[in-house]
């Protein structure tokens, strides 16, 4: 469904060239749900905008839904659906007018566009809002309208750029219900960008981790976590026995960190098979005379994967941003 070859995009800002996307090669099979994961400015949206022909590549090419983005951009646009970060519907327009016009933009006649628009409002729980002005809708209702607009042309491939950004948990869950239904019932290929780790982890079949314009990992979330991160164990000990504890732990774990609490020290790190390692570690610490106050083993998250790949925490970068 998607094949890219050295897809590259540079921007020039104040005489400085910024390499936003650096020779990305990806393939997406029909029916897949693939998520681009990365911090702000990593190149996720730029890649998506090139694939949707909104942005021409500086070099390289991509074939999307059977057409080249560089030489057949209109064909690509006719075959895909796109839901951007902003509100897709004009605020001054009425809900039904926007849906019908969207159908007309894709070559439907008036009656087909109206019939499809009715179908979409019913499917996305917008029937009672058909005559309302878009500006009067709530954020969640607008997002559902965006999805309806993106699906008007019955695309077999749909792109969603940060679909749940700014949504409350209820609306986010509702959005994902629609996305999953779309995929399950119509086998639509879905490509989305997100910086929500939990979403990529829970819903995407494949995660493409992107950083500084390069794909640095490309696998299922389960495999990424298993192969790149390992389990995380945190041991809390008295500050007087911190040195002895570190000596025991250092030989077994990686990426060790130490943080000081009130008369205690937390030593954490990555360990293979954490649930099996923890009992052994506790025994060793006991033999070394270390008084363990608390112990915790945690299955890795995609943030751990990102940390392992880049040395930076995606979550902390998002908070800082």
């Amino acid at each position, binding site marked *: 469904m998607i094949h890219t070859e050295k897809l590259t995009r540079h921007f020039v800002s104040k005489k400085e060239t910024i390499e936003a996307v650096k020779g990305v090669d990806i393939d997406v099979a029909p029916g897949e749900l693939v998520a681009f994961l990365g911090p702000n400015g990593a190149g996720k949206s730029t890649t998506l905008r090139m694939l949707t022909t909104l942005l021409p590549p500086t070099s390289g090419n991509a074939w999307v839904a059977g057409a080249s983005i560089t030489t057949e951009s209109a064909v690509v646009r006719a075959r895909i659906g796109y839901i951007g970060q902003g509100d897709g519907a004009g605020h001054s327009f009425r809900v039904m007018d926007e849906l019908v*016009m969207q159908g007309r933009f894709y070559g439907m006649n008036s009656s087909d566009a109206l019939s499809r628009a009715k179908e979409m409002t019913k499917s996305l729980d917008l029937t009672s809002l058909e005559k309302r002005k878009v500006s009067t809708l709530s954020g969640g209702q607008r997002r559902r309208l965006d999805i309806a607009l993106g699906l008007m042309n019955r695309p077999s491939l749909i792109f969603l750029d940060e679909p749940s950004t700014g949504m409350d948990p209820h609306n986010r869950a509702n959005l994902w219900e629609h996305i999953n239904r779309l995929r399950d019932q119509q086998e639509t290929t879905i490509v989305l960008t997100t910086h929500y780790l939990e979403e990529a982890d829970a819903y995407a079949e494949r995660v493409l981790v992107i950083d500084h314009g390069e794909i640095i990992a490309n696998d299922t979330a389960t495999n990424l976590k298993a192969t790149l991160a390992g389990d995380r164990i945190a041991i809390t000990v008295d500050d007087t026995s911190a040195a002895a504890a570190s000596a025991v732990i250092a030989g077994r774990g990686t990426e060790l960190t130490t943080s000081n609490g009130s008369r205690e020290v937390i030593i954490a790190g990555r360990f293979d098979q954490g649930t099996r390692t923890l009992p052994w570690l506790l025994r060793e610490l006991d033999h070394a005379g270390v008084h363990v106050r608390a112990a915790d083993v945690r299955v890795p998250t995609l943030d751990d994967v990102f940390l392992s790949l880049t040395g930076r925490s995606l979550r902390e970068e998002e908070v800082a941003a």
Partner: protein
Amino acid sequence: MSTLVADTRNVFQREMSLVLRDPFSIIFSLVQPLVFLGLFGPLLAGSVDPAVINGASPLQWFLPGVIVMICLFGTSTTGSNLLFEISLGSYERVLAAPLHRSAILIGKALKELAPLIVQAALVTLVSIPFGFKLYPIHVLAGLLLLGVFGVGMGAFSNALAIASRKREWMFWAVQQSLLFPLLILSGMMLPLEAGPRWIQVLGAFNPLTYIVNAERALFSGTFNDPSIGWAVLAAVITCAAGLWVGVKQVARSTT
């Protein structure tokens, strides 16, 4: 070409739905030129030497100027709507649809021109009892000429909106800085012939001057005026240049 026409029609219909769904905007857009004509017309009648306007009724001279002014104001501000759409995100959705890029620009410009037809018809009809002589075919030709010019102006306005999308104040600064010199140096409101020589020289470099002169000739019932040929050339060049610049800007608008 058929795609361009169909896409233009669809963009135009979308834009027009805003006007048709909001009757107040229609009422005010119709009242505005009437107020202008009613207040400015009598002032002009008393202050302009009839010899300068070839002894014609002041309305015969002034009405085409008002209609060109409505066209200029409407099409030169159309970019502000685009700026609003860009800031919200709906413009990006339109760009992601398989629409001809020129159709987006032409459709938006035509939305500003459609009310112009109604406004022009209204002010023309209202002016008849006050001495304005109507030449329907000539007036239609004049509106067609304005339509071509207006599409170009609208495209320039949208191009300006895209160019200033990261600094919205820039749109209004540039638009206002250009609008009034264009307006004054075209002789739209006051005859350039009554002004100093340097004003007349500057006016000769203003494409709008030729449009205004041609509209006056057409509204006076003649096709045999050299200004009409120049105006057609000015309108076609404005239209072609506006669309060329506009399409270039549309291509750059998502960077």
